[in-house]
């Protein structure tokens, strides 16, 4: 374990272990921790007996992270528009629980708890930013951006520490920063009613989640070669990931168009149609056909399951069975 990463990780670990309260933009990082306490956390669950293909881990993370991105963006848009958050927020909480479960699967309950706290906090910061944009409160927006900056460093340290440097701090920081930038940019565009930019940046953010998923999966697989087998970059894992990404992104774009039509805003509808058309031009035809068969009113979680089924991923990916 790298010592400087341990120190960087310290505040969030402390926050994770000492506080169960809901994070807000006002929460102050605590920069004090007994290093022995950090070293004492067993991230790698030595007792876990399961062995998985690394590609499954990538697929799982990609699935959950794209869903996280989709739900986060939906919630931020609602916050900007000043709409109630109830349904999406509940789905996002479920998504966070699933991610925490996945992390727990790899790093045990201590690692899962630290992750959960960090993750919950950063969702709140995004929400704070979106609300601030909706209220034209620049000061609050700036505070949220500052908190997200802290989050980037904290989460990168966490991953670096957890993967024993296999997913190195700066690499994670780089991809995480892009993710934060994209989400902030789409919210800003949405607040400015620049829907074309909002949809475009949102799509990029969606695709960028695969970059994060791959970095995490590769780092974890390298760290634990006995627990994760194979290469997440090679066939058929790569094809599985591509299909999954194409399908879920297309499904989301369709859902976005429905949302735009429900809003009745002409410019939003035009932008959503344009974004969907552009996406369909680059989406494999078989994915388009299968996504078309999905019920657009499904929740995110239902959609994910339905999509995997519609894409027959379990077949095409040759035994890449998700847990």
């Amino acid at each position, binding site marked *: 374990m790298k010592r400087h990463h341990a120190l960087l990780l310290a505040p969030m670990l402390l926050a994770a272990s000492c506080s169960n309260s809901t994070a807000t933009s006002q929460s102050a990082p605590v920069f004090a921790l007994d290093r022995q306490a950090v070293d004492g956390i067993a991230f790698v669950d030595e007792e876990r007996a399961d062995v998985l293909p690394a590609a499954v881990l990538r697929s799982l993370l990609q699935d959950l992270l794209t869903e996280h991105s989709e739900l986060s963006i939906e919630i931020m848009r609602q916050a900007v528009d000043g709409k109630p958050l109830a349904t999406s927020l509940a789905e996002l909480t479920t998504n966070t629980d699933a991610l925490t479960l996945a992390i727990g699967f790899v790093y045990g309950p201590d690692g899962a708890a630290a992750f959960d706290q960090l993750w919950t906090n950063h969702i709140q910061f995004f929400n704070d930013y979106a609300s601030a944009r909706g209220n034209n409160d620049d000061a609050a927006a700036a505070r949220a951006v500052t908190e997200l900056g802290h989050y980037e460093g904290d989460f990168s340290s966490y991953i670096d520490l957890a993967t024993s440097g296999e997913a190195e701090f*700066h*690499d994670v920081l*780089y*991809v995480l920063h*892009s993710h934060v930038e994209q989400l902030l940019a789409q919210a800003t565009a949405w607040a400015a009613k620049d829907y074309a930019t909002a949809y475009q940046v949102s799509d*990029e953010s969606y*695709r*960028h989640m*695969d*970059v994060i998923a*791959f*970095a995490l999966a*590769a780092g974890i697989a390298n760290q634990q070669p006995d627990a994760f087998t194979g*290469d997440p*970059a*090679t*066939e058929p894992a*790569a*094809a599985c990931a*591509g*299909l999954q*990404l*194409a399908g879920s992104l297309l499904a989301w774009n369709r859902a976005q168009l429905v949302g735009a039509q429900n809003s009745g805003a002409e410019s939003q509808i035009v932008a959503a149609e344009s974004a969907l058309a552009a996406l369909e031009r*680059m*989406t*494999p035809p078989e*994915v388009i056909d299968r996504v078309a068969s999905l019920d657009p009113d499904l929740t995110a979680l239902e959609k994910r399951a339905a999509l995997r089924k519609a894409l027959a991923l379990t077949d095409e990916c040759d035994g890449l069975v998700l847990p």
Partner: protein
Amino acid sequence: MYRTIGRRLGPPSLLLVFGALSLAIVVGIGLALGAVLQDSIRSRAIADASRTGEVAAIVGVQPFLEVADLEQNFLPLAPERISALDDSLGSSLSPNGIVRLKVWNRQHWLIYSDNAQLRGRWFAGAETLEKAFEGELTSEITDLTAPEEREERDFGELLAVYVPLRLGLDGGFTSGTEGEVIGAFEIYLPFEPIASDIAADTRRLGIALAIGLAVLYLALFRLVAGASRRLRRQSERNLYLANHDSLTGLKNRDAFIVAVDDRRTTSETEGRGVDLVVLLDLDRFQNINDTLGHEVGDELLRVVGARLLSEARSVDLVARLGGDEFAILLSATNEEQGEKLVGRFIRSLNEPIELGGVRLEIRASVGVSVHNGKLAGNEVLQQADIAMYAAKANHTVIEVFRPDLNQLTFESLELVSEVRSGIEEQQFALHYQPKYSIETGQFNGCEALVRWNHPVRGFVSPARFMPAVEQLPIGRELTDYILASAVAQLRVWQDLGFAFGISVNLSARDVNDPTLPPYIDSLLRRHDLDGRLLTLELTEGTVLTNEDRTISTLQQIRELGCGVSIDDFGTGYASLSYLIRLPATELKIDMSFIRDLDTNEQSRTIVQHCVDIAHSLGLTATAEGIETVEVESLLRTMGCDTGQGYLRSKPLPVDDFVSFITAQPAASTHGQKP
């Protein structure tokens, strides 16, 4: 210690400062040029490498791609297609110096790379990738921070070249600059060889630049060193000129005052003996200049300076303050010794000086001020100046400054300073004293006398300011003013039918001024007056100062028709032979002989002689200062022609004068013409 060293070394020379500054500038220019050129070399080297990469991409990679490959999104290329590309490209990358290849489509999908980890994945990509999508060949020394560059970090520093991938009109790829960009190659080249080339070129250029600048600096330094030497010599020369009189080589006024100030400091600190400031002003030097020319005048000043210098001891300082003024700063153990020393300087001028075949007797008026160490140099000099003026006015050769002298002379100097404003503000007025025929009693003229109605001092007697004014250029301005006023008044009286003339007094400086006759001529012409109406009076003493010049001026005045009157006759020492040469028309017998004419036998004898001399020379004899009937009667007996005095009238303001004349018998107002 540092202060001691600093004093010993003194301030750095101008050349040293220039040397250091110019070196810093040259080094700065060198560094700036070096940086610019290095940047240029680097840019060129990178551009060359980029073109190499472009050629490698287009020639070595592009032929093996298919357009359909670029349409692949989300999913990797089919395994067989990847195998085909691996087979085709695997052997061509290294020979072309390519350490990594990436092929992007416009949607940011990495459709192919020799790194299997990247195939079929989406990345945001760098800004340079976007430029390539816009059709620009770009490159950057990548920092390898992007996630898609993780695998390249082991290669060391790399140059990433982005080559646009274009679709030609035939539906296939094209290597031209036209066509739709549907993707881009990203080619990584090792930067180390490029960096080596850059370093080698930079080194060569740096050496050339350093040598060039060194030569430039040395040439510049040598050039400036020469200029600096000349400048230093000129500076020394300027310093010398700033402190010395160029004519005599003596110290000048500024240097003298500084020396007096320094002596004050010394006196204060050491308290030894007395210091004397001696001011010498040559008498009638202006006459020498005017008559013998400035060259002779200058030579005379040189001789005087040399004589004074020859008398000076090493502790004394001789200076020429300007014009014909010299000053000496003397140190004496006591006032007696000081007196002797001053005497030596005065006596040194006694020996006549022969210049241009003319033997010149030099006389000087000397003012002495005792330097008690309490006054500044210019104040001490001012005291000596006052003493000198007193000596000149009193004809005492030498005066030592004393406070009462100061008071009197200061007043006259102050008055002199106010004359010009007095003229401008018309504070001067002319009063007129009638002149009349002693024989008939008829008025036949008048003498104009200047009066100063000072706004603060009230009436100021001419005796308080004229002696000083007459010695200065402002005296001529006052004379011009009086002449102009008198001639203008003549015109008025002529128009009123008064036919008598006016007499105006001139000073010695006036009659030595060659511009005076033309000025009088212009006045007469302006007012269309007969010159015979104007008489110019000058004292016997005045005409003796510069005989030839005076005679010449007076002749010119006579040629204008004007009369010339010798005033105060009998008090000077004019010889009869000289008197004969003067183009005079009137002798005015000094009033000192007239006032006691009835009581003093000697005065009667003198006056009778004067009247006889005037008549024998064909001149009008005039007596001024007639105050009693007895005197007037005696003068009539003696044959004196014209009278003037309080018996008939004191000098009157113009209006009173006109009233007075008008009140006379009719014949008087049409007095005889001069």
